[in-house]
């Protein structure tokens, strides 16, 4: 089965892609920004193709590909047979032969059948051929939880990809980044795993999509691959997060502010490459850090962040770097997921545990 009512998009909400008009900034969903990024990329480059399960007439179960088949024809946006290794392997061949495929894995856990293709080929082919064969593939994965999805629909699978050399791994957290990062991913000559936090699909920001397009097409959008951003400045401690955890981290920082603590929030955006500079600059300033991520903590991206930060900022640290992550258990069923997900309270508890001198 696919998404549940809890997280399901109202049919048609993502609307059709906007072209040419110059509307003023208006409330735009994350989903719509992704849809526009795809449309704009396909418009800009006829080598860009979109395929996967239900991405054609249906427009994807989350409607991210809405309207693309109608606009670009079924040769450029099409449904495949139901086989993820097939989708990924075909993408490899198409990329070898001049195309820039964007593929959708319907849900995080349904990308696992393609794992061998991803690890043994997508990630390794460019290195194998000393760069003769480049694979400009974007693997879009609606990922992570918080939408009341049943089993297999809420996995945070980023560690599997981040641990695999050769892959670029991105996870946007804002509407604007959703647009720019997907454009940048499609333009990248390297394979990109593009993680779309499902629970943010219906989050909104005031943006003018036509303006974003002009910015990107005009080469004015600053690079986001490999560049983290300070999502909220602060002085007392740093929360390091990405994707679905960024809004939670921001909420925690807001709550902490009320308690008189100034917390900086970093949105990594790019897991691989990793922006050591931005992260370490912040931690060296604040002296304290908590990593927030939804995936089970063991051998995770969160572990990596902790390891890097303590390796590089050891003498700036007033306390160990702590983690607030998912538990080391399978993602829970809908009624139990809120016990699992990093929450504002759990983050604030971790911040409290950072051995503040002014506490007894």
């Amino acid at each position, binding site marked *: *089965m*696919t*998404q*549940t*009512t*809890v997280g*399901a998009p109202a*049919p*048609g909400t993502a609307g059709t892609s906007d072209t040419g008009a110059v509307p003023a900034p208006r409330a735009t969903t994350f989903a719509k920004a992704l849809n526009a990024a795809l449309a704009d990329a396909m418009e800009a480059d006829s080598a860009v193709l979109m395929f996967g*399960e*239900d991405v*054609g*007439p*249906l*427009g994807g*179960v989350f409607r991210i590909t809405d309207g693309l088949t109608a606009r670009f024809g079924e040769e450029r946006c099409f*449904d*495949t*047979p*139901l*086989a*993820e*290794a*097939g989708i990924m392997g075909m993408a490899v061949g198409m990329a070898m032969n001049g195309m820039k495929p964007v593929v959708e894995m319907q849900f995080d*856990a*349904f990308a*696992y*059948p393609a794992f061998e293709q991803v690890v043994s080929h997508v990630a390794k082919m460019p290195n194998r051929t000393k760069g003769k064969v480049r694979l400009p593939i974007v693997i879009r994965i609606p990922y992570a939880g918080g939408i*009341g999805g*049943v*089993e*297999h*629909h809420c996995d945070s699978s980023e560690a599997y990809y981040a641990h695999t050399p050769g892959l670029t791994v991105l996870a946007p957290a804002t509407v604007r980044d959703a647009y720019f990062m997907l454009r940048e991913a499609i333009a990248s000559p390297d394979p990109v795993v593009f993680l779309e936090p499902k629970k943010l699909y219906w989050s909104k920001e005031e943006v003018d999509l036509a303006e974003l397009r002009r910015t990107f097409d005009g080469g004015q959008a600053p690079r986001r691959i490999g560049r983290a951003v300070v999502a909220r400045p602060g002085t007392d401690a740093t929360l390091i997060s990405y994707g679905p955890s960024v809004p939670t981290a921001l*909420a925690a920082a807001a*709550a902490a502010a*009320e*308690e008189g603590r100034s917390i900086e929030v970093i949105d990594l955006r790019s897991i691989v490459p990793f922006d050591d500079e931005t992260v370490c600059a912040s931690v060296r300033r604040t002296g304290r850090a908590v990593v927030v991520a939804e995936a089970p903590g*063991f051998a995770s991206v969160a572990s990596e962040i902790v390891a890097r930060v303590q390796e590089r900022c050891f003498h700036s640290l007033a306390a160990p770097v702590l983690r607030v992550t998912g*538990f*080391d*258990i*399978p993602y*829970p*069923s*809908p*009624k*139990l997921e809120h*016990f*699992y997900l990093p*929450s*504002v*309270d*759990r983050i*604030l*508890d971790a911040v409290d545990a950072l051995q503040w001198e002014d506490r007894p």
Partner: protein
Amino acid sequence: MSTATNKGRGSLMGGAPGGAPSAAHALLPSDEPVQLVDQHGHPTDDERYPLPDGERLLGAYGRLVTGRRINDQANALVRQGRLAVYPSSHGQEACQVAAAVVLGGEDWLFPTYRDTVAVITRGVDPLEVLTLLRGDWHAGYDPYEHRVATQATPLATQLLHAVGVAHAAKLRGEPTVVLAMCGDGATSEGDFHEALNFAAVFHVPVVFFIQNNEFAISVPLKNQTVAPSLAHKAIGYGMPGERVDGNDLAALLAVLGAAVDRARDGGGPSLVEAHTYRMQAHTNADDATRYRSADDVERWVPRDPIARMRTYLRTLDLLTDEGERALADDADAIAAAIRKGLNTEVDVNPAELFEYVYTEKTSQLREQAALLREELARDADAAAAGTDGSIEGGRR
């Protein structure tokens, strides 16, 4: 080289009447799906499969009526927010019922997310079945109690588990047969291929049962395969394939029954493709108008599995007004029990999150369970003290 008519080509009943087809040919399905009762409720003739007797049909018909009612009730509960999601088998109930009733107690059923009616027909408590879709836990029944595996979500993966269960039974010399279900879309997955091949090579008693309902969410069959039929895949594994009218309960009982007998008698695995139709959206979260017309669906209304069997049974006087009333009452009772059950809140216990990941909690999980326990205790204290422990309300 066979000179038999297509209809007469090898069947799961064994033998290959009407000629002397090569061994290979006997594995091909007939050109037309097997049908024993047509959409008007008239018996049709098939030299290979005898029509099941009246009692058997009547019993199964009752399950059909109940099955439809379960689908309708579950849909209603989704609308009322009591179920998170429901992939309905409305229109496919003949497949659901047949899959369950052809099996004996020693057999195993491997269902998918769409096969709730089959699972209930096999005897599993409806409320336990709906645990998954209600969101309480990933599965709600003990697979060993009725020998029904959990409903599989990752497509085609369960077919391999079915092969393993059958293989283990075979090694121990048990007479178990395993019936494994999947959809037309699932046949494209690599696991489908590997499962059929393993079953054939190890010659294990598995009946692979494809409900070809013409769609995989929005993707029509023609985008899934260009094979003459899905049953034509069987020969590639060296097992027989058969096609059956998936809305004809009688034909399903006959063909699946033959496949099960064949497997139990040491004849090995076989593949049965039922031609049916998904009358409703993929799930309530799906908008089927985006990829198929009302007319498409309309065409399948006259082929409804219940109507035709009802006509047939009434014509033969096997089904009476009184019998119908009794069946309706049974269905009402089940629906009422489901409603009642789902309208009662169940307490979920967060401590269980850590309980079953390993037989014995790792020290990591003990720590994590303690963390959550403390948080909850603190929240409870806060609630007792009248302060709000929730996120929105700030903290203690």
